[in-house]
């Protein structure tokens, strides 16, 4: 009997435990102290002060997704260091002799596939290919590193591409076979000039920069290639193909005369922006639901390249010293997306932290993938004469207390 009663109780309990979802019944009984207040702030209309500036910052280019070569009319110049790992199949090694009679290098050439262009695309494009004499690594390679590179112009002293050729989907330049032969002998026999890659340096007459896929990217069809055609006289001819195992580009800065009332962002050099809004008067109970920031691009003052930059990157500064340029990693970063001439980003995590007491020394703006481009975007800054074009944040907030 007891068991039956207990089972019955469980059945009854299970049956009556059904419950509706919460409803609006009783909302009028919620005391005012429990309620919240929503508001929308517009920095352009609500008199919230702002400041902006820009500065140059040497950045790590060894991690770039592109390598850039060329020179712009502004004086911005980029060079490439690239190295192909040259080895011979075992079946050919025995044929390689010091007098080059066993195996003959017929020709050697490099194929580059442009994936980026900036500047006057209808201009000619000339560069010199230097044989690099000393070892180098992409990691940490910078402008100062370039000065210690020993290079000889004995690979190809004058690669000239006319305006028609340079727009092709492939750029080809040839290397002196005897140098390439030396690299092969060095790898097999030792004692010859080691393969330390090549330095591609733009001529000063160029008015464009061309980018090629870097080692960090994996798209096979546009990967730079070194082709070596060799033969065993009278027996066979073969072509060996190598992809790079090291690359980096180096951009030399120039005085580009950027306007001070703009926020100038440029890749490679690089130029970054600093933008700060004053939220010190905000109620500390405020919760930021959303904060959409917009930056307006001055297309005429910009040199965008192809493909053009469609994204910006923003982080908040951890330190009041702009020179330190250190950002607060815990706040994450925000990506701004492009809609015509307007870039828009959701910076609620930044605004919330500033309201919560994180030192507000502004945010850092940079081009997304700034190490892989030479594009320049000029945004109207905080002191621009037309206030409607200045940076703006529209903030949706919830407050505990009635405003």
């Amino acid at each position, binding site marked *: 009997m007891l068991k039956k009663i207990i089972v019955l109780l469980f059945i009854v309990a299970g049956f009556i435990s059904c419950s509706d979802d919460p409803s609006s*019944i009783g909302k009028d*009984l*919620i005391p005012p*102290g429990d309620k919240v207040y929503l508001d929308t702030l517009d920095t352009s209309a609500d008199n919230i002060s702002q400041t902006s500036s820009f500065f140059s910052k040497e950045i790590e280019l060894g991690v770039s997704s592109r390598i850039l070569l060329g020179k712009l009319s502004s004086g911005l110049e980029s060079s490439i260091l690239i190295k192909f790992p040259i080895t011979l199949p075992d079946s050919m090694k025995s044929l390689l002799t010091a007098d080059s009679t066993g195996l003959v290098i017929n020709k050697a050439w490099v194929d580059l596939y442009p994936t980026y262009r900036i500047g006057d695309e209808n201009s000619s494009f000339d560069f010199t290919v230097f044989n690099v004499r000393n070892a180098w690594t992409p990691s940490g390679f910078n402008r100062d590193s370039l000065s210690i590179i020993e290079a000889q112009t004995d690979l190809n002293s004058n690669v000239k591409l006319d305006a028609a050729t340079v727009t092709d989907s492939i750029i080809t330049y040839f290397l002196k076979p005897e140098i390439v032969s030396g690299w092969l002998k060095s790898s097999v026999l030792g004692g010859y000039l080691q393969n330390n890659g090549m330095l591609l340096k733009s001529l000063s007459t160029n008015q464009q920069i061309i980018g090629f896929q870097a080692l960090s990217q994996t798209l096979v069809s546009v990967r730079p290639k070194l082709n070596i055609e060799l033969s065993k006289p009278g027996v066979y001819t073969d072509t060996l193909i190598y992809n790079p195992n090291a690359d980096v580009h180096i951009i030399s800065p120039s005085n580009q005369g950027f306007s001070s009332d703009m926020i100038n962002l440029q890749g490679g050099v690089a130029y970054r922006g600093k933008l700060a809004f004053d939220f010190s008067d905000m109620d500390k109970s405020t919760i930021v*639901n959303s904060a959409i920031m917009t930056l307006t691009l001055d297309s005429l003052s910009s040199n965008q390249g192809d493909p053009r930059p469609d994204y910006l990157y923003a982080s908040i500064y951890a330190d009041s010293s702009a020179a330190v340029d250190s950002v607060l990693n815990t706040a994450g970063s925000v990506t701004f997306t492009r809609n015509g001439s307007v870039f828009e980003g959701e910076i609620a*995590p930044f605004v*919330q932290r500033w309201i919560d007491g994180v030192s507000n020394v502004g945010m850092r703006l940079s081009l997304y993938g700034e190490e892989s481009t030479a594009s320049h975007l000029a945004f109207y800054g905080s002191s621009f004469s037309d206030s409607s074009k200045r940076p703006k944040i529209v903030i949706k907030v919830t407050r505990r207390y009635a405003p």
Partner: protein
Amino acid sequence: MLHNKILRSVFIFSAITIFISGNYYGEGGSLYSRIGVGTPLISYSARNLAFGELGAAVYSEYNVGGYNPAGWAGIPITRTEAGINYNGLGLKDASTSTYYSGYHFSGFTVAFPIQYSKGITLSLGLLPYTKVDYEVVSSVSDREETFSGQGSISKAYFGLSYKTPFDMAVGAVYEYYMGKIDFQSNTDFYAAGVNTAIYSNESSYFGGGYRIGIISPNMSELLGLNSKDLLLAGLVYSGPVNLTTDTALVAVSAYNTKTLSRNLIETELPYSLGFGLSYQKEKLMYTADLYFQPWSEYHSNGLTPVELKNLTKISLGMEYNYKPGQFLSFWEQIVLRAGLTYEQTQYRIDGTDLSAMGISAGAGIPLSSTNRLDIGFMFASRGKAEGKIIKENIYNLFFTLSFGDFWFVQEER
């Protein structure tokens, strides 16, 4: 015997687990629990619930959870008691209705009759005191606002009963109150990427109080009744309680949790006074009770909510009990109970004093010679669906298991 021990262990473990892990509840409950420190609970046992929640003049032979500590004087053997209760709540306003339900811990108590002949019984336990449990969801054009309250205040107690030479029982209890109540306002936006805003008003309570009670000697002869009948009067008084209250207003954004303010304040709970009569004639016992608690004297940081006024409750109950005997069938051993209650509640909403009426019934089911399962059910109706006021139909179902052991029992020589 082993079976009973296992059953007892499982039940007590389950009840304590429910208590520790919070109560099982739906996502809604009484909005009136937003007022003060929540809805106070008077009855902890299925037995008391079944005859109208009170019972100041009732001895507790099989139950520890009666609200008059003097009643422990009637406990002959060591008793362990634990319970859970089902709460169903039908809410109705002027335009809509809904139903919420859930389970709650209704207490764990132990009583040790140190000297039964003198009514000396030591009892200790853990009992719920108030409960806050509601959730209101309001949809606005671009968002959903949710206001919720969760939490409870419980009390751990220990106390003694004693029966004086002239057969009057007295009992006294020290009670330590503790608990946490959290009121939240949650704003969720329908649009993707718009962050939720949560404000949480958390209060932690702790402080001591006391409760005393008496049960008179049999007064039947004084009133010219049959001397075999039992007419008792009981009085229970709980002193006012000052609770130290640690309050914090916390804002929770998508990126941070920050404390906007933190204060240590005093919360003063008002005293309560209960008076009751019980009259037992053969198998039937009748009870009549009056309970009063001046919630108008409740203060939180010196302030009294305008919605609080004095609580007055009256109840009538009856219990049909078997006469102990060796050869009774299972059905003959079942105790039946019923009750009625009327309450001028402590709530004044929108200028209207709320009242409540309830009807209750229950049974005590013997599990063995010393163990018992009590079941109590009460249906009550509170308020009316008018203006801001909500009509509440309350369905309470209590299960209380009481186990007896012959500890401390002195053998007859």
